[in-house]
């Protein structure tokens, strides 16, 4: 009886955990992004596809996939409006490749150009922990369209996004 109750409790919690994000997606805002990325340690350009959901004005999740060789997918969570914190993990063909945590702030550079700057630490698995900075830029094209770019000391990215 106790075991059955425990199972029911776990199932209820599991369903609740699954339902909360699904319910949030229905009212989410975000964007899809398609672009190209260039890494300093690889030749040529790779395509990048990203999806960002803003579950609340503070909480956003971003999944980005790079078709570089080897492929790489990052999952980033951001919390805060204007300023806040972030964390991410990067997954490659051999599992988790790196992770990072830190803070971010947003700045309106012009009427059409917004920037979000991330400052934190990065750890490539089995390597040293190093500081990192990257800046995301968004240029409003009007309507749901925008040009988005990213620059860090390691790579650059440029593409177009569609907001929903």
């Amino acid at each position, binding site marked *: 009886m106790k075991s059955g109750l425990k199972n029911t409790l776990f199932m209820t919690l599991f369903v609740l955990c699954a339902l909360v994000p699904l319910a949030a997606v229905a009212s989410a805002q975000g964007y899809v992004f398609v672009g190209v990325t260039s890494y300093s340690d690889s030749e040529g350009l790779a395509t990048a596809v990203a999806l960002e959901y803003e579950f609340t004005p503070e909480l956003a999740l971003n999944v980005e996939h790079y078709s570089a060789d080897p492929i790489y997918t990052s999952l980033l969570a951001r919390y805060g409006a204007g300023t806040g914190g972030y964390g991410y993990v990067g997954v490659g063909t051999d599992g988790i490749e790196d992770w990072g945590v830190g803070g971010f702030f947003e700045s309106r550079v012009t009427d059409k150009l917004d920037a979000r700057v991330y400052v934190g630490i990065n750890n490539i698995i089995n390597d040293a922990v190093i500081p990192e900075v990257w800046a995301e830029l968004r240029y409003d094209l009007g309507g749901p369209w925008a040009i988005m770019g990213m620059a860090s*000391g390691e790579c650059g990215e440029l593409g177009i996004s569609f907001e929903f």
Partner: protein
Amino acid sequence: MKRSLMIGVLVLAMMASVIGMASAHGNVFVGVHSNGTGSDLVPFVAAEFQVSEELAIIPRYYVDEVYGVRVRYGVGTGGYGSVVFDANGVENWRVGAFFEHMLSERLATRVNIGLIGFPDGDVVPDADLDFKYSLSGPWSLKGLVSYGIVQAAVGFDF
């Protein structure tokens, strides 16, 4: 020829700084540079001469005999260029644009976004972030973070 060119550029940068100093304001700062956990801390000294409202010249010297100079033009937003020399000549150069953002009354940031080039011809994207936290009087804490690089320093405004 290459050496003379380097010396010429350095002398020009120094002269511009000295000429500018007469009417310039700015700050000097002393700190340490690190490339992350496991790397040595390298002390450095630098000065920022605000020659005019828009133009700033920032020479920098690291104790491992690396020199650099950065030129910045603009207020709030603008452009920058820099070159770093080591014993073998030019170590790298940077060009790009910057924008400034106040995070609080005391904490100011400057975001530099552009390209970095190396002697072997590689040119890759680059981004770094300058912090300045104003203390009382002419003192401030300064920092820089980039991919794989962090610097912290104490500054004195003049």
